[in-house]
């Protein structure tokens, strides 16, 4: 199909090799997680929907911790990252994001029996956790600075390897709250409604989750392939159907272009 003048880029190579190598952190329900030994969730469903446009291409999916995802992409261990990566200025400077797949705006989760904490500003003077290196941690840090500038007591921030450990410490009473995207918290609270409750107000600016490719000419058409696929799914209503399936609600995401990150 490619013309003679057109040298084969990554997308052409994937189509001719009939294999795409994808990096995923399958520890982020309901976006991507493991059920009965298989990686499932909103992300894998959307990926398979889009890959229907590249018939015959098989997916080789590696499940690695989040800290290994972007390094693995940079060293060409993976062709592409299908895991929910929050768009930030730092990441956008080094990698190419697709258009958003979901809202990543940060909110707080607390223990259900903690009646004292009712609004986000209530974390002043308390201990709050999040995942090291995450955009949600950055949103929490910015929010804590804002509270302090208003003259409120300082927030003590603890960083965890994964959100699961932060949730565990929240349940154990060592934390007052955990900062995470509202989309993830909805699933946490649905699964463990006996323990957790969401403080239903965002902290920090509006952010989005996207998928990521390398920022070079070789990867450009592959990133565009996925961006176009996401935009088409949004127009046809399939994206919203998948959101209802996995989150129980739909999110407003701009799929015409990649929004400039505020965080």
């Amino acid at each position, binding site marked *: 199909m490619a013309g003679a003048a057109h040298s084969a880029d990554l997308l052409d190579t994937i189509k001719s090799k009939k294999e795409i190598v994808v990096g995923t952190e399958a520890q982020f329900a309901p976006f991507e997680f493991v059920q009965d030994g298989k990686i499932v969730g909103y992300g894998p469903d959307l990926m398979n929907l889009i890959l229907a446009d590249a018939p015959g291409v098989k997916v080789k999916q590696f*499940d690695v911790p989040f800290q290994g995802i972007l390094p693995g992409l940079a060293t060409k261990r993976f062709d592409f990252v299908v895991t929910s990566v929050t768009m930030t200025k730092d990441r956008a400077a080094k990698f190419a994001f697709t258009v958003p797949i979901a809202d990543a705006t940060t909110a707080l989760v607390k223990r259900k029996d903690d009646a004292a904490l009712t609004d986000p500003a209530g974390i002043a003077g308390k201990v709050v956790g999040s995942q090291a290196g995450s955009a949600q941690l950055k949103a929490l840090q910015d929010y804590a600075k804002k509270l302090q500038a208003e003259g409120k007591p300082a927030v003590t921030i603890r960083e965890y390897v994964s959100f699961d450990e932060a949730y565990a410490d929240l349940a154990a009473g060592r934390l007052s709250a955990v900062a995470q995207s509202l989309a993830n918290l909805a699933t946490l609270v649905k699964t463990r409604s006996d323990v957790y409750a969401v403080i239903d107000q965002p902290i920090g600016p509006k952010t989005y989750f996207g998928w990521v490719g390398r920022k070079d000419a070789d990867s450009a058409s592959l990133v565009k392939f996925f961006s176009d696929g996401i935009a088409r799914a949004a127009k046809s209503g399939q994206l919203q159907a998948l959101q209802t399936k996995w989150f129980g609600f739909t999110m407003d995401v701009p799929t015409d272009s990649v929004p400039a990150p505020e965080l």
Partner: protein
Amino acid sequence: MNADTFADRLAAYLPVLLHGAGMTLIVAALAIVAGFALGAALLGLSLHRQGRGPLARAVALYVSFFRGTPLLVQLLMLFYLPSAFGVDLPPLLVAVLAMSLNSGAFQSEILRAGLAAVPKGQIEAAAIFGLSPQQVFRYVQLPQVARAVWPALVSEAIDVVKNSSIVSVIAVAELARGGRQIVAANFRPLEVYLTVGATYLLMTGAIFALGAWLGKRMGQGRRASAAVMNRIAINKT
């Protein structure tokens, strides 16, 4: 997933954890066996020219590198470095390779300590009795070295099983990763990690029991090898 009792949930965990335990055992078993072969080879190389040649220095460098850096760093280097040069090794192969290279360094030092435990006088005495160097190795050194290093080798095998819990950083879904995957979906860390811990204990307990049983049989072998020594001595006189 939302099963009510712990027993119901445990039934849902078991397939994932058993699959992970199988992967743990595969990685650990290969690493222990390959690590032993590598350890023995390293020791042989380091004894070359009475341990004073360049080979011995190279072995010492190897051992200090693999004992002196974290296994996690070794894993990540072996996984990400080759792909930066266009060589793609499958994760399972990298996991076994890194763990074998690491365990080989430790096992060579264990074997070295065992060899040092046989007094020189015995070897000289055996030579005076007319035993060939092969016979000295087979009947004098090997049985004593094996008995001396056995407890340390069993403990190294247990270490390898536990160390394998970090190979998930390069996408090998072993037992610990299986536990994390379950926690990521059901948010019940305590009971899942307790189950994972119990499964590790079962595996390391089995190694310990097998090691103790084999060690006891080796003790019985001591009398047998003494009998052989007597026969050789009688034949020679």
